[in-house]
């Protein structure tokens, strides 16, 4: 029945089943020799490649490089985007000034700017950070603005009648009330930053997961490409889980019976 709850163990079983089916189909295709190994290597080949990549090809260095880049670009976007979004959501003047501009740029694909960034910044670290920044900043700012706009006016008015000043209302009401929404926005945009990172590294880099995938393609190491993709996915999941854990830790009041 639509929307009806199902027992937890049934839910878990279904989730595991989807992965099991994927693995089964993959094994059937590869071990059954329906697909040549150049296109799709068998699962055991992937596992062996993963071991080689970690042991001999310095995959850990690639992971660290990628994570550092994405973190730098993302932190820069958040450091500017969160305060700006809060201001835009609270002060109509700020909204009127920035919103049309950001709304315009957000529809320009960040990947299309890569050639321009390479022209301006070369192919060093700053270019990659710029791509990630560009890919997340505008969306992040607009999403934080929406979160802040949703803070109830009655809540703010209540604070005024309790003696809070116009400036104090940011720290005492608007920020704490928007915090859960902001953390959620960060979680979602970090996911996007991660995909832009790969784009930036595939185009021009000398290290990182995207670079490793690109190199593997040049040498027809299909298994290495797949290992790279799986690692990217796993790190993405790990970050998502981290943010969800943080959410629970930061906002104990939300877990307990809702928002009001």
């Amino acid at each position, binding site marked *: 029945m639509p929307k009806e709850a199902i027992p937890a163990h049934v839910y878990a079983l279904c989730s595991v089943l989807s992965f099991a089916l994927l693995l089964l189909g993959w094994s059937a295709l590869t071990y059954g020799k329906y697909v040549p190994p150049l296109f799709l290597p068998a699962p055991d080949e992937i596992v062996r490649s993963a071991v080689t990549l970690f042991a001999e090809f310095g995959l850990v260095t690639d992971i660290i490089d990628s994570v550092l880049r994405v973190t730098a670009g993302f932190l820069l976007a958040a450091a500017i985007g969160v305060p700006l979004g809060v201001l835009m959501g609270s002060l109509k003047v700020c909204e009127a000034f920035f919103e049309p501009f950001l709304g315009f740029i957000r529809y320009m694909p960040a990947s299309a700017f890569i050639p321009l960034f390479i022209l301006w910044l070369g192919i060093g670290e700053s270019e990659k950070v710029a791509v990630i920044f560009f890919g997340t900043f505008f969306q992040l700012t607009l999403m934080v603005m929406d979160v802040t706009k949703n803070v109830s006016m009655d809540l703010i008015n209540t604070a005024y009648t*309790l003696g809070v000043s116009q400036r104090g209302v940011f720290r005492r009401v608007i920020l704490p009330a928007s915090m859960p929404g902001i953390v959620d926005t960060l979680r979602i945009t970090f996911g996007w930053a991660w995909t832009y990172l790969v784009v930036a590294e595939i185009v021009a880099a000398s290290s990182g997961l995207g670079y490793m995938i690109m190199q593997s393609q040049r040498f027809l190491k299909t298994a290495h490409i797949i290992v790279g993709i799986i690692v990217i996915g796993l790190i993405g999941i790990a970050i998502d889980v981290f943010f969800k854990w943080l959410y629970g830790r930061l906002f*104990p009041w939300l877990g307990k019976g809702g928002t009001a």
Partner: protein
Amino acid sequence: MAAKLLVESVSKVFGDGGRAVTALENTDFTVGESEFITILGPSGCGKSTILKIIAGLTEPSSGRVTLDGRAISGPGRDRGMVFQTYTLFPWLTVTENIEFGLEVAGRPKAERREVADHYIAKIGLRGFESAYPGQLSGGMKQRVAIARALANDPQVLLMDEPFGALDAQTRTVMQELLLGVWEESHKTILFVTHDVEEAVFMGDTVYVMTARPGRIKARIAVPLPRPRSYDIKVSDVFLGIKKEILALIREESWKAANSLELMGDGDEKDV
């Protein structure tokens, strides 16, 4: 009774040009020290607007409001307010919510705790000190909101349909609880409601407002003894006042209904 709060020919127009809405027109009334007044009127007649003007959250288009002889020019802790919507800060516990105003004022922790404990006992929420608002029922939330406003020790308490969202039984309990708290502190209270029985039961004076644009249509004294308990709701005096007010309101409702018809049909506007 000395005049505490003076509302003098206050008008409020929202918007401008063709879409201007006159919410309040020449509203006048006086509230005495320690008086409990209730403001009764149909929805949309400007009850919330008048409270917000007194709170300093909205500027009047004309007229003025004075508290203890000083003109009001913005919100301040001398005028506490309780809203109809739930406005507890969800990230603060019950105790922290009640302490909020004192904390803003920079009062020492020990004093804050003492005040909060006092009010928690009074509103019957012992054991819920460290609960978050999300864990409370609607009635409990409004009790905390009242305690939070009172903990700040305001000169005037403004209450905008504070029990409007509660079920009938809870509302009855809350009315008696509020009167109990009031008996002790005798704050000056302006209590807005659209429930006739509530207005008469709570108030020393009931102001009945006209439909939009709002004005004070009648001032009705409620000479019922205090402390009041639920039995007076069936007393002759109570029923007499209720009947009088219902007659006034019926008049207003007719006017409101007719004016809606006129608004819907532009051709007949000049008739």
